[in-house]
C-alpha cells in the first residue's frame, strides 16, 4: 500500500515540480546575465495559456501528428515514475530497468521526430534529422553511464542501483567520475541546452528542439513543453540517483519520505542553478561540431567503464 502511495506521490511531484525546475533554471540564468528575472511561476502560466488556446493543425497532418504529443508526454511521465526520486518503494519500477529507460527516451524521440517529419516542411524534417543525429550518439553514451553504475552495483535495476550507491561508504569511484562528466554532457545535449541547442531561440537555422515542435500549437504544444520539462526533471533525477543518492527513502522506511522531499527540492535547486551557470558561461557550438561533443561524452563513458574494470581487479 505504501508502495502505491509513494508511486503516486512521485508521479504527481514530477508533474508539479518539472515546470518549476525549468523556471528556476531560467531565473538563475537571468540573474547571471544581470537581467530582471521573470516570475518563477512563468512556466505554469505558459502552460495554462497554451492549454486555453485552440490547436492549429496543418491541413494534411496525419493522426500520427496529433497522437505524438500525448505519446511523448506518456513516455516522459513513465520515465519519471520509474526513476527513484524520493523513495525506492516503487511498484512500477520493476517494469523497466536502466536499459528500458534509455529505450523509453528513444521511443519518445522517434515519435517526436516522426511527427516533425509528418507535416513536411523544411524546418520539421531538418529538426528531425538533427534530433536523431544527437540521439544516436547520446543514447549509447547514456547507456554507458548507466552501465558504469550497473557494474558497481551488479544490477541494471534503478532501485537496486540507488539502494546500493546510497549505502556505500563515502569514496570516489574513478569510473563514476568519468561517467559523471559524460552524463553532464549527454544531458545538456538531450535537453536541448546551450552548447548544443538553445532553448530560448526561435527562427534560427541552428535550432533543433524548437524546429521539431514548430508546427505545434495550443494544447499539443503545451503537452510537448510539459514533456520537455519532465525530461529535464527525469535527467536531473537520474543524475541525482547515480551521483548523489543520499536521502532517498527506502522501502522499509516510508516515513523517510517526509525528509526526502525537502532533500530532493534542495538538490534540484542546486542542480538547476549549476545548469544555468554552465549555460551562461559556455557558447553555442556550430551544429557540425555537435557530433564531436557527444562522441567525446560517449568515449568518456566507455573509458569510465574500463577504468572501473581495471581497478576492480
Amino acid at each position: 500500500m505504501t508502495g502505491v502511495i509513494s508511486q503516486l506521490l512521485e508521479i504527481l511531484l514530477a508533474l508539479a515540480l518539472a515546470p518549476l525546475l525549468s523556471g528556476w533554471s531560467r531565473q538563475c540564468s537571468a540573474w547571471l546575465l544581470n537581467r530582471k528575472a521573470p516570475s518563477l511561476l512563468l512556466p505554469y502560466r505558459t502552460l495554462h495559456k497554451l492549454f486555453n488556446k485552440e490547436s492549429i493543425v496543418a491541413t494534411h497532418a496525419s493522426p500520427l501528428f496529433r497522437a505524438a504529443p500525448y505519446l511523448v508526454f506518456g513516455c516522459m511521465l513513465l520515465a519519471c515514475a520509474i526513476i527513484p526520486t524520493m523513495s525506492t518503494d516503487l511498484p512500477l519500477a520493476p517494469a523497466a530497468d536502466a536499459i528500458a529507460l534509455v529505450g523509453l527516451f528513444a521511443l519518445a524521440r522517434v515519435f517526436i521526430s516522426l511527427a516533425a517529419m509528418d507535416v513536411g516542411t523544411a524546418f520539421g524534417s531538418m529538426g528531425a534529422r538533427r534530433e536523431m543525429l544527437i540521439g544516436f550518439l547520446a543514447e549509447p553514451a547514456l547507456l554507458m553511464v548507466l552501465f558504469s553504475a550497473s557494474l558497481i552495483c551488479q544490477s541494471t535495476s534503478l532501485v537496486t542501483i540507488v539502494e546500493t550507491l546510497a549505502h556505500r561508504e563515502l569514496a570516489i569511484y574513478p569510473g563514476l567520475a568519468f561517467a559523471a562528466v559524460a552524463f553532464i554532457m549527454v544531458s545538456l545535449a538531450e535537453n536541448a541546452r546551450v552548447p548544443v541547442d538553445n532553448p530560448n531561440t526561435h527562427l534560427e537555422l541552428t535550432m533543433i528542439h524548437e524546429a521539431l515542435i514548430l508546427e505545434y500549437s495550443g494544447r499539443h504544444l503545451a503537452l510537448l513543453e510539459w514533456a520537455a520539462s519532465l525530461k529535464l526533471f527525469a535527467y536531473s533525477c537520474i543524475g541525482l540517483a547515480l551521483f548523489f543518492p543520499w536521502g532517498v527513502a527506502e522501502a522499509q522506511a516510508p516515513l523517510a519520505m517526509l525528509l526526502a522531499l525537502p532533500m530532493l527540492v534542495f538538490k534540484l535547486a542546486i542542480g538547476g542553478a549549476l545548469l544555468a551557470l554552465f549555460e551562461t558561461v559556455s557558447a553555442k557550438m556550430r551544429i557540425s561540431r555537435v557530433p564531436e561533443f557527444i562522441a567525446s561524452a560517449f568515449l568518456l563513458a566507455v573509458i569510465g567503464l574500463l577504468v572501473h574494470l581495471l581497478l576492480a581487479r
Partner: protein
Amino acid sequence: MSAMGQWLAIDWLLVIMAGWLLIGAAGVLALNRLELVARWLFPAGGCCGLLLFLLALTALPAAPEVAVLPIGLPSLPFHLRLDALSAYFLMVIGAASAGISAFAAGYFRQGEGTPPGLLCLEYHLFLASMVGVVLADDAYAFMVMWETMALSSFFLVTANHRIAEVRSAGYLYLVMAHVGAIAILLCFGVLQANTGDYRFANMRAQQLTPFWSSAGFLLALFGFGAKAGVLPLHVWLPEAHPAAPSPVSALMSGVMLNTAIYGLLRVSFDLLPMQQWWWGGLLLAVGLATALYGVVFAAAQTDMKRLLAYSSIENMGLLFVGLGLTLIFAAFEMLPMAALALTATLYHVASHACFKSLLFLGTGSVLHATSERNLGHLGGLIRTMPWVAWLMLLGVLASAGLPPLGGFVSEWLLLQSFLFTPDLPLPLLTMLIPVVAALIALVAALGGYTMVKFFGVIFLGQPREEKLAHSHDAGWWERAGMLWLALGCLALGLLPTQFIQLIDPVTQQLVQAGLGARTAANGWLLAPVSMDQASYGPVIFLLGILGSFAIAYLLVRRLYHRGTRRAPPWACGFPWGNARMQDTAEGFGQPIRQIFEPFFRMQRELPTPFDKQPRYSIKLEDHFWHWLYLPLADLANYLARLIGLMQQGRIAVYLLYSFLTLTATLLVVM
C-alpha cells in the same frame, strides 16, 4: 516411417514438404493462369506454413525423432532428424512464410518476367528446401537441400530477368552461394574424420583434435558466413535482395538468412566435440564489424530495398555477436551465461524474421502503388496507404529496437549478458566485453536513426511527386499477410517470458542450461537472472505509456478543449515552401556520411558558383568491392586468359591434349 496410425511429428513435416512440392507442381500445370495461382495456390502454401508453425510448436519440447527417406544414393539414403534446435527454426520458417505467402497471394501480377506458375514452383521449392536444410541429419541430404535452396532462390531473384541489373545481381548471388557451399562441403569433409560416414550421428561421435576442430569451424564460418552476408562476404546481399520481388526479398532476408545461423549453431554446438574461446572472439569481431558496417551503409542508402538489405546485414552481425558470446561462455564452461546469450540470439532470430519480412512486404506494396523504389520520389504515403503505413510503423519500431516491441527484448537480453559477464579466465577478454556492449548500443541507436529515415521519408511529409496522390492502399491479401507479421512483432515484444519457455528446450539441448525455469517464476516480468539484478515488464511498460496517454487525453479534453483548426503549415511564416524542400534521403544520410566518412568510397560531384545548370551528385560505393572483389575478378580473368592460350580451336591440338593426358595418366598408374 513408423507404424500405421501412429504418425510422428516428423512424418507430418514430410507431408507438409510434400504439400509444398505438390502446390509447386500444380503451379507448373497452371503456368499462366494468374487467378488460380494467386488466389488458390499461394494461400494453400500459406496454410501449409501455418501448419508447420503449429507442428513445430508442439514438437519443440518433445524428444528428438528420426526418419530415413529411401531416396538419395544407394548406400546413403536421406537421414532426417527433428530435435529442439530444428523445431525452433522450423517454427520461425512456418510463422514467417505463412504471412509472406498470404501477402504473395495478392502481390504477383502478370508480366513480371517469369510466368506466375513457374514462380509458384520456385517459391514453394524454396520453402520446402529450407525445411529440408533444417531437418537434414547427414551431410549429403544437407548439401542437396542447401543447393536446392540456393538454386530455387537464384531463379526467384532473377524473376525480372529482362532487366540487366537483376541478371548481374543474380549471377553474383549464384557465385557467392557456391563459394559458400564449397566451404560447407569441406567442413563436412573435416568433420567425418576419414571414416567415410557422412551421417551427422557419426560426426557427433568423432573426437577431433583441436586443430581439426578449428579447421572445421573456420570452414563452417566461411560457408555459413557467406550465406548470412557477414563481412567481407556481404557484397551479394545488397544486390540480390532488392532485385527479387518483394515477397521473395522478405523470404530471403527474414527466413533464408536464418538457415546460416542454424548451420553455424548445428556445427559448432552439436557436431563439433569442443568449443574454443577464440572461435567466439572471432565471431564477436566479425559480427561487430558486420553490424557497424551494415547499419552505417543502411543509414546512407537512398533505395528503400537496399536500405533494408543493409539493415539485414546489420542484424546478421548482431546475431553473430550473440553466437560469439555464447561460444566464449560455452568454451569456459559458464553454462548459465551461455544460455542467456543463446536465448538472446535465438530471440533475435525470431524477431528479425518477423520485422524484416514485414518491412520488405511493405516496400512491395509501396512499389506496386507507386512503382518507385527511390526514396527521393516518395513521401506522404501515410494518407493514401494508411494500412501499409501503420503496420509498417510497428515493424519500424521493432527494427529500431524500441520497447515494447520484439527487437528490444533481444537487445535487452544481449546487453544483459554482456553486462553481467563474470570474470573470464582471460583478463583482456573481460576488459573488452563492455566495449563490445558499447558498440552494440551504438549500432542499435544507429538502427533507430535509419528506421526513422526509412519511415519518415516514405510515409510522412508531403508527396515528392504528383503521381503519389493517386497511389492506392494494399489489397486484403497483402494486408492480412502484413497484419500476421505485425502481430508477431507485437507478441514477441509483449510476451517475452512465454516465448523464452519455447527457447528453453533449445538452450537445454545445446548448452545444457536454460532460462525457462527462472523466468517462469516471475510471471509477466522478465528477469533472466534475478529480480534484483534486472527486470523488464513490457506489458506494464506499455500500459504505463498508454495509461498516461489516455489520462492526459481525457483530462485535456474535459478541462481545456478549445477545438482544432486545420490550416496550411506555418513553417516559420515562409509561404513558398514546397514538397521538394523537405529533407531527402540524401539529406538524412549526410551526417552519417560525414561522421563515418572512412567507411565509404565516395564520389562527389559538387557544382561551382558559375555552373549554368548546377548539379549535385554523390555516389557511394563499398571499399570491399574495390579492395577485394575487383582484384579477384581480374585474377580470375587473367587465369582464364592463360588457359585460353591452350585453346587453339583446332581438333588436332585437342587430340594432342587427350593423347598427352592419357600418356601422363598411364605413367602415373604404372
